[in-house]
């Protein structure tokens, strides 16, 4: 079985993000970059399938700047077989990324595509859905459980939806996007990191794919969220209720 998993380079959720003074973006220097946590879950899920289904291959794909090689290397160190980097300028819109992915998917012809439900930088939560639509493939988003039939022709996905769980079954190929509870990703072990060096990492220029990646929207301005006020200690429940009425005005 061939599984394609997506990997996006994003700022480490632990680092503090600063907005540039002119509001044109975030300060990119001196921040740590990691694999989008939802993509890490996608890689892990793909590897678990590979471990179960003999002869499987896990291919990673990233769309972005050349430095995203590092995040693909991390995925390879976790155990993926090879990686494809579509070199493009950072910050492509979801539809553009979906179109690029569709090209890669058409040439790779995987049986299953596993993606993060969203990337933690722009939080669009759109690429998986758009790619499935463009391909005319079934999709199951926000997966908290993924099971394959014995013949690997159908997938059954449990989705986390408002107020409960929904179980979907669909024929493959299809696209699954991961939620937080799907699995706990493994670390890239030292031996894995050493092995990753010898694995194939192919680069494709986005221009060579012949898709329209021109932006349709314009970033007007970024602003940091308002600074949080320091907390306050209250002496009694009465005082708390009083302040919630008069100061916070929430009740």
């Amino acid at each position, binding site marked *: 079985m061939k599984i394609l998993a997506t990997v996006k380079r994003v700022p480490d959720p632990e680092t503090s993000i600063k907005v540039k003074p002119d509001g044109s973006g975030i300060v990119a220097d001196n921040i740590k970059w990691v694999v989008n946590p939802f993509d890490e879950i996608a890689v892990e899920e793909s590897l678990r399938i590979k471990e179960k289904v003999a002869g499987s291959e896990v291919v990673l794909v990233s769309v972005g700047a050349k430095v995203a090689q*590092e995040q693909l*290397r*991390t995925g390879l*160190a976790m155990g993926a077989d090879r990686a494809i980097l579509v070199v493009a300028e950072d910050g492509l819109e979801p539809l553009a990324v979906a179109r690029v992915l569709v090209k890669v998917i058409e040439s790779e012809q995987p049986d299953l595509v596993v993606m993060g439900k969203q990337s933690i930088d722009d939080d669009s939560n759109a690429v998986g859905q758009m790619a499935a639509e463009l391909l005319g493939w079934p999709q199951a988003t926000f997966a908290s459980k993924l099971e394959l039939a014995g013949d690997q022709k159908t997938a059954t996905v449990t989705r986390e939806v408002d107020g409960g769980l929904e179980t979907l079954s669909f024929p493959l190929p299809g696209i699954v996007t991961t939620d937080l509870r799907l699995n706990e990703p493994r*670390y*890239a*072990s*030292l*031996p*894995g*990191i*050493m092995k990753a*060096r010898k694995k194939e990492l192919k680069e494709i220029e986005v221009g060579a794919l012949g898709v329209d990646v021109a932006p349709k929207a314009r970033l007007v301005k970024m602003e940091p969220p308002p600074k949080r006020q320091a907390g306050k200690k209250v002496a009694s429940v009465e005082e708390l209720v009083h302040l919630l009425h008069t100061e916070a005005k929430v009740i």
Partner: protein
Amino acid sequence: MTTTAYDIEASKDTLGRFLRDEVIPLEKEAGLSPDVAPPAELRRKVRRRAHALGFYAADMPREAGGGGLALSERVLLDMEALSHETVFFEDVMGGPGGPSSILLACDERQREKYLLPLVRGEITTCFALSEPEAGSDAGGLRLRARRTNGTYVLNGTKNIITNAPQCDFAMVFAVTDEARGAMGGITCFLVDKGTPGFSVGRVHTCMGFTGFQGELVFEECEVPAASILGQEGYGLALALDWINANRIKIGAAAAGLSRRLLAASTAYAARRRQFGRPIGDNQGIQWKLADMATELFAVESMVTRVAAMWDRKLDVRKEAAMVKLYASEMVNRAAYEAIQIHGGTGCLLETGLERVARMVRVYTIVEGTSEIQRIGIARRLLKELAA
């Protein structure tokens, strides 16, 4: 095959995650004290996991089941590991009870029995050199190994030996030829726990460490000649080669701990307000921070440079002594100043600073005291002049 900067960054990343997400929570959950040796089964669990991730025995050769990292790479991981606070440090990276390059001198049988399981974290050892009457002067060992027909009989005591209470086997340095002494009269024996005549004596309570060190007592303990590591008379030669790498690793540990001290001190200096402003606005505090940072940078530079020399198989006896001397004294100064910057708060257990101060005190003593390092450095200088 050389490692790239990215590989090392990725490894440090995994190490940090492993410590943060698994090791430290395990420690919290079990309610362990940072000073006291954890239960053996937890230590084994951490070792096995650390070996699977490639940290334990990272710098042992691949043929021996290790990670094959160069020392210059391993020290970067040591620095990272020690910038986290965990009682399991030696179970993650390996310590005196763990894989030791001395044991690369094992013969085929010893390799299967000791080296390979040790590298996998299944068993542990100890390096038993010091005795009640012989510390800095290793040539003055009293523990005798008397030769009988085909066997040796050990009599004597070792003390303050790290991992002696827990080890599965001990590397015991014993006198086989009194007349030769340090010049070919000392032999290293691999002795199994449970060998008749071999017992653990007192378990020490030591500054910063409880239950880690202990005595080993040998009373008419008979061992076969096959338990000799390498050749008879070559015990100290084995130890002295390995000790250079260990001294460099102490430098790395000192650097890792100092990073933690500096980060805590800088943050506290910015946060703590007295007389209406952060204490870090006072030059008196700024100078302490500047000195800590400068000395830390010096040690990081020394460690990486000397480790690279070691990797190129250069003679690093003088430089390894310099690293050990300077780094061990630096981290003690840093611990003192970190507590000073934190004031009374620094003395509270919850800041973790007094723990570091107690733990690093021994750094200027083990693997050769500061005085012994200075003697070694000066002797080499004078020898180089004469040559």
